[in-house]
């Protein structure tokens, strides 16, 4: 259970950062926090008590003794997506900084109504 709680607390802290923090870099950090939270959750879903990683390094290992591999595959993809989004977000933050000379998101509100 503790893993779920950990994952969700990570997600909520990240979301809090996104919603409240003014500095855009912190927002992007919040986003990546949420990503990592979700990833932890995904892996936790696949875990089965008392079983090992799904790698048949030596023939003696049996299929029953292994954890569910699919969430781990999904996490792999999710992490890379997280990286891509964060990279793009940071580029856009750089561009915004070029134009607006500030990182405070509440100051960048020209497109409204």
């Amino acid at each position, binding site marked *: 259970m503790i893993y779920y709680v950990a994952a969700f607390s990570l*997600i909520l802290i990240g979301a809090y950062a*996104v919603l409240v923090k003014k500095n855009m870099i912190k927002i992007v950090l919040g986003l990546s926090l*949420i990503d990592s939270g979700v990833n932890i959750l995904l892996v936790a*879903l696949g875990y089965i008590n008392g079983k090992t990683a799904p790698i048949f390094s030596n023939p003696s290992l049996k299929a029953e003794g292994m954890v569910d591999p699919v*969430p781990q595959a999904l996490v792999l993809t999710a992490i890379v997506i997280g990286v*891509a989004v964060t990279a793009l977000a940071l580029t*856009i933050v750089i*561009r915004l900084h070029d134009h607006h000379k500030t990182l405070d998101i509440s100051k960048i509100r020209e*497109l409204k109504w």
Partner: protein
Amino acid sequence: MYFDPVLMIALPLFAAFLIPLLGRVSKEIPKYVPVVMIGFNLYESIMMLPHSMVKPIIVIIAAWKPPLGINLTIGALGNVLALIISLVGFVVAIYNVRFVQKEPTEKYHMLYMLMVAGATGMVLTGDLFNLFVFLEITSISSYALTAFIRDRNGAEAAFKYLLIGSLSSTFVLLGIALIYGTTGTLNMADIAEKIQHVDSKITIVALILLVTGFGVESEMFPLNGWAPDAYSQAPTAIGAAFGGIVVKAGVYALARLIYTIFNFQGVFFFILIMGVITLLIAEMSAIRQKQLKRMLAFSSIGQMGLVLIALGLATVRGVEGGLFQMFNHAMIKPLLFLSAGYLVYYSGSKDISDLDGMGRKKPLLSFFFAFGAFAIMGLPPLSGFWSKFIIISETIRGGFVVVAALALFGSVIEAVYYLRVVGRLYFKQPNESEKTKYVHASAILAMSVLALVVLFAGLFPDMVMSYLKPAATELVDKTAYIKAVLTAGL
């Protein structure tokens, strides 16, 4: 004869990887690669149309049968939407060839092609996580394209879109995690079958997470904060593409969700209500807009609201109307955006008030804009009328007379602000006419293709409807879909 449908996604990706290499060879080639690739997609979806009407074409990837491997299910619905996306993509690609002058054109074309490929992927895939991956491809390319114009607002719009888009993708991921946690499979048909046995408390939360995620992409009311900025600040061609492609894929995903995967009756009524609210608020804020493109953005959100209403009706005829409306919107909105782009380009400023008398200086452009405006308002001889008529008749048949009245009130508002712009084009004294720049031939070709399709669909609606009926039936009763997918391998 059609090639293996997976090429519709594989080839564009392959071309995207190759463009940097080709770029070295000669500066000109990247410009035409998207046209070729999306043209191939168009050819492919047209050729597949007769087959998919009869029985969904199941394409197995990596030689593993559906529940294990990923598969593309090209049913009537998927095929129709793929056709729409590739048609709009093709037309806008033609428009792009000449319109994009700014330096990293090579990268622009790559991003554009991948966006179209991502959207096609979303529409065709039969696997939930694969849908998420293609959603990510489409949204990331849209983030990059929104910020493509190097001015103050482009980056701001892109950041808003990115922030909300990534939030939505996390919710989708959470939803997928929840579904996998309870059903243990990722194939849509498989999930649809196994979801009944799961305790309804969990499935409803999964549904909410997924609906919120895809709702952001299909511009439901509280979630569409990003849409007006993204549409208006993106380059013209991309604005048109947003309306025609990205949002379509989002709405398809939402429809696939509520119709096939979950069967929870309350959600239809909820979608209906959200559709009406989206329509009204979008139309009401559109009427007060000062800038042309931002007004078109709001009107596009309004049209999506109408589609959501149609989807919320949960009857075959209603879904048919929704699909027809999607088709019309996909044809008309790019026409409006492209002509608006040129009008803004010539009048020098984005504001509507500076469009006075453009009807005199640029008669052809203003004619296209007026034609689009008349079509979107739903005036009889054009196709907009039929789709709106079917949707409203189905809403009233479903008993939601108040909803129908509100939708009609929305379209009256829409008529007002479109007429104001058309009026300004034709009826105001043209201010002094500075040097007249000519309109690129490729743009004219693109717009006239769209206009002809709209007129043709308006005069012969039965032709279009004959393809939409099987699509709607396939969406509404999911048993056929599940059976087709799960027995594909045997």
